[in-house]
């Protein structure tokens, strides 16, 4: 059987694990709104605020019992975005005071060769490195460093200016993205998918007033979550069956690949449609009527810790709005 579990839940006993899912989701939303409300400005105060939030998140992570490594690994998918944004902000902002003298970057035979050699080295050596994210940053830095250091046989050159405002902006955005990702990861690490499902459904309930079919959406969400691992398993089986008929993405030409993808997609669709029909029948026979009143097997209680957490989140948001208003 598969080892996949739906979502990234890591079991634990921390206060964060025990928080009511509705509160957790609501608090996350409030904190996310607050984080985005902090203005990007050259005034160092927003940067400090953002960094304080980062520290706060680290404290939260420590208290949740989730290993720091796992949380930081959540940044892996966006490492490229982070680095790219950082450097763009750093070099494009041309206001404020120069931090260092202008740096001349050479696109030369030696610098290109140097970059290529470094990238090959990076590609080969990365499997031995544990802190991959940091290694990636170092590599990005090296690309620039090499261009600055190897002017021999130069074809052309350009100049980079690093201003203090650029540094502040780059740092700010970098920390902001990191905060958002880690906060959201903490939610998925400490909340079971069934609880998340319930939390989202409950919070959407008020939308019933404007005739949004919340119950139906909730049921669709719940069924989707239930079927993801099953579908993944079935897709894997179909991939193996088609592989046994000669489908091989590694060894085939591009035009063959199109048919090969179809050979994976169509069976998955066929299975899913049949499933939808069978499921509809099964649900109907078990008395499910869309929109009718139902009781729930899940019961959640809001405790003191929940209310306290919510209040803290609101206070943080309040402080941020207040500081925006007075400036």
């Amino acid at each position, binding site marked *: *059987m*598969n080892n*996949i*579990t*739906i979502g990234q839940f890591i079991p634990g006993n921390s206060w964060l694990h025990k928080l009511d899912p509705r509160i957790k989701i609501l608090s996350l939303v409030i904190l996310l709104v607050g984080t985005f409300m902090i203005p990007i400005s050259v005034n160092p105060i927003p940067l400090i605020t953002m960094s304080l939030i980062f520290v706060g998140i680290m404290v939260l992570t420590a208290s949740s019992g989730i290993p720091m490594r796992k949380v930081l690994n959540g940044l892996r998918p966006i490492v490229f975005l982070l680095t790219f944004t950082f450097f763009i902000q750093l070099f494009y902002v041309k206001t404020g005071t120069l931090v260092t003298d202008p740096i001349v970057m050479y696109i030369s035979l030696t610098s290109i060769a140097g970059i290529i050699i470094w990238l090959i080295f990076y590609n080969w050596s990365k499997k031995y490195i544990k802190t991959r994210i940091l290694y990636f940053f170092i590599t990005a830095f090296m690309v620039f460093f090499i261009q600055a250091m190897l002017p021999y046989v130069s074809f052309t050159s350009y100049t980079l200016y690093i201003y203090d405002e650029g540094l502040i902006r780059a740092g700010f955005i970098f920390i902001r993205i990191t905060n958002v990702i880690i906060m959201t990861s903490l939610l998925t690490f400490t909340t079971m*998918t*069934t609880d998340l*499902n319930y939390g989202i459904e409950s919070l959407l309930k008020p939308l019933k007033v404007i005739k949004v079919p919340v119950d139906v959406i909730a049921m669709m969400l*719940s*069924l989707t*979550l*239930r079927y993801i*691992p*099953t579908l993944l*398993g079935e897709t894997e089986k179909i991939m193996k069956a088609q592989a046994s008929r000669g489908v091989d993405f590694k060894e085939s030409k591009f035009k063959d690949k199109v048919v090969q993808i179809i050979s994976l997609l169509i069976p998955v669709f066929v299975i899913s449609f*049949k*499933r939808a029909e*069978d*499921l509809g*029948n*099964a*649900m*109907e*026979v*078990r*008395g*499910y*009527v869309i929109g*009718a*009143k*139902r*009781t*729930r*097997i*899940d*019961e959640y209680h809001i405790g003191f810790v929940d209310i306290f957490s919510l209040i803290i989140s609101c206070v943080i948001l309040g402080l941020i709005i207040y500081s925006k208003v007075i400036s």
Partner: protein
Amino acid sequence: MQVNFMIKVSDLSFSYNNVDEALKHVDLEISKGSWVSILGHNGSGKSTLSKLLVGLLSPSSGEIYIDGMKLDEAHIAQIRKKIGIVFQNPDNQFVGVTVKHDIAFGLENQCIPYNEMVEKIHHYASLVGMEELLSKEPHQLSGGQKQRVAIAGALAMEQDIMILDEATSMLDPEGTQEIITLIKLLNKDLNKTIITITHELSFAAQSDYLIVLKDGEVILQGTPKEVFNQEDLLKSSNLELPFGLSLYNEVAKDHTIDHKVLEALWAFNSKT
């Protein structure tokens, strides 16, 4: 009076799109507390019949009475409280995110209050042997386990009649055995009326009464002994007697063989 029979079907016909006649003028009666097997080749109409019995399809003509109540639009909600069904594909009827949630599904639909739900779930999960696995997700379970959960879900609705529509076709022998054991428990200990739809005669051999469908019509019915005697009729409807039953028939024809052996052979076939 219809109340003598748990299920009474009168002159039932059904056509898909008014063209293919899936069922033609079928009459049947199923008594309370019995275990009836409906046998037939693929396309004989047995799945259509089971869908009609639970109100997923409406008859083209004829009537169905469940425990004295006529099955029609007006009564469908009440009928659903009397008759439940377990389908063939274990994955395509497992609604809940976990075992607990799936057993709860039918109860939630009936607006059963929380405390009562919890009690029922534990009770019926125990009955089918799944109480240790209540928090497991379906992809962590075997086919047999998923079908047991489906049965628990139906039991929790406390319906008197349960239809198992080829419920073991996709299972391995272990899973199949788990389900057969459960069916016997439900029928003998809990007095449920059970209808199994199958093409496995060895499975059907263990039930009380058999109904054989061919091309939408009932061609044969009776006790297992009576039905299996008609080997030629069964062959004509693409049903093959399993080894043990075929042997029984051959031995029965040969009068030189000790009749105790014949009885033992019959006992063998009905014990598995």
